């Protein structure tokens, strides 16, 4: 568990533990930030020396890599979300989507095919849709399907599994079915109080559109990115600690292999644009198990759960992720049995 200690030397940088309370006006957040940066700069040599152990170094590299890789997609998703909130009139979305949830959910699920990003982009966009009055069930179906069935991801899958077009078809079908079923389940059983009211319904009155857009972006981005950091810490820790060789022994147990790779997808939190290549490399496992890896990964992983918790709250995140995981494993098993 030494990897988790990596946080320790950076504690001077984390005054978030004691943020600017209304009572503590003498030491504001600006002063804390400046003091933290000065401390970090002064302690840089010590920090770098401390992180020199090979395991810690690998952890830091993976953590930085996850953050760097996710930032462009997070910026894209937040820009889209802020644009939806500030620029798209609510009446347009009401007209664009069918009124009844039974129809709106599959329509939104299919619409996920047009957002060419990975899962980091889809969380803020779904939040923006809900803030604009789209039924949560439909927005959630979009949240699940967008990172899984967009053209970039399907192309990557085709490249990673040459000569097996049925793998692309199975991934598309299983992902879309999962997104729609979970959307319907939410429409039928979901309770509004699980879903934290969206942040941006209260726009500062009197502010212009551009100011609203900029404020929404800064707030949404910082919020989502903060939770991305938590997800990155978790994913990097598991990435460095979970020994891949152990998995090989579980590959040939029938019935277990699907579950093992589905759980690995949750733990590794590989970007949905790259997970097909990782799945292709797990060649000791049967194809349905590798399909489960690609269906579960874009919908449930430690990074994504952290970001959903940040955007929609924990009560939502754990229920939603548990249901999605179960449905995704079932859908992947069925699609694997039928198509592969």
């Amino acid at each position: 568990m030494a990897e988790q200690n990596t946080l320790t030397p950076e504690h001077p940088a984390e005054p978030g533990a004691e943020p600017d309370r209304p009572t503590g006006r003498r030491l504001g957040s600006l002063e804390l930030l400046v003091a933290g940066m000065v401390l970090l700069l002064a302690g840089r040599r010590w920090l770098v020396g401390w992180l020199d152990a090979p395991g810690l170094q690998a952890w830091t590299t993976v953590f930085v890599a996850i953050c760097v890789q996710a930032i462009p997609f997070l910026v894209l998703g937040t820009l889209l979300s802020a644009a939806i909130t500030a620029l798209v009139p609510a009446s347009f979305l009401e007209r664009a989507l069918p009124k009844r949830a039974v129809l709106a959910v599959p329509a939104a699920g299919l619409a996920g095919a047009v957002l060419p990003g990975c899962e980091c982009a889809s969380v803020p966009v779904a939040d923006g849709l809900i803030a604009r009055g789209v039924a949560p069930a439909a927005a959630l179906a979009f949240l699940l399907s967008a990172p899984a069935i967009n053209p970039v991801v399907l192309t990557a899958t085709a490249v990673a599994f040459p000569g097996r077009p049925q793998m692309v078809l199975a991934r598309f079908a299983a992902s879309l079915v999962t997104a729609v079923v979970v959307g319907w389940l939410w429409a039928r059983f979901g309770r509004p109080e699980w879903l934290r009211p969206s942040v941006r319904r209260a726009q500062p009155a009197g502010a212009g559109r551009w100011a609203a857009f900029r404020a929404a972006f800064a707030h949404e981005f910082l919020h989502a990115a903060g939770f991305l950091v938590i997800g990155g810490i978790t994913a990097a820790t598991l990435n460095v600690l979970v020994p891949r060789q152990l998995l090989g022994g579980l590959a040939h147990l029938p019935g277990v292999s699907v579950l093992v790779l589905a759980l690995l997808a949750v733990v590794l939190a590989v970007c949905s644009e790259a997970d097909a290549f990782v799945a292709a490399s797990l060649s000791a496992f049967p194809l349905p198990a590798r399909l489960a890896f690609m269906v579960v990964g874009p919908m449930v992983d430690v990074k994504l759960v952290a970001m959903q918790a940040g955007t929609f709250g924990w009560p939502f995140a754990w229920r939603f992720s548990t249901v999605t995981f179960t449905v995704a494993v079932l859908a992947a098993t069925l699609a694997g049995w039928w198509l592969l």
Partner: protein
Amino acid sequence: MKREVQAILLVLLGSAVLRISLFSDMYLRYVRAALRPYLVTAGVVLVLLGVLGAVAALRGARHQDHQDHQDSDHDAHGHSHTHGPRIAWLLILPVTGILLVSPPALGSYTAQHAANTVAKPDTATGFPPLPAGDPLALPLAEFDVRAAWDAAQPLKGRRVKLLGFVSPKSGGGWYVTRLVISCCAADAMTYKVEIRGAAAPPTGSWVAVTGVWQPDGQPAQPDAVPALNAGQVVSVPEPRDPYE
């Protein structure tokens, strides 16, 4: 968190991204080369919006001082626009990681803790013939896949040149190793070739090895590590893109 601090965090994060993507090749330690334009765009957007936010905050500071106090109650929930979410303080970690620590690319530690990845390629048509050249410079991943799965065994007797870093073999001996990433370092896959007939250079150093494949006659395995009889081992600088 004040609006000034939000703005500074955006600028810091944006500059960190630009520092490794626009002003250097350091991004190649963490992500694949194709991501560069997106990183530069994202960095520019973050810096720009951060600067605009700072300007607006400074301009608004005069008028809105009283409003700040009214809004501070909402800060605890991170729901207010004037005050940013507390969780954003965590962004100091990636900023510190990128700008101050700048960890190196993954290397021998990762390789030692991973099995070789030689998935059986799903090519129904078989492999194309190897290109000409003596010694033939081959990506390490291709050498591994050909050695394990190419039924025509075109590597037999060919002199090849492989580029990678040194990682130790448990129980003696060493590998020349290369990591392959498809998106970022979190999905790195390890490719190794065991080097025979040459003393091990320092672990983690980069070498170019020229030699001939030594088949061991065993049936192909997904985690097989092929061996190379080394003729020549030359130490080389780390390539610009450390991943294949």
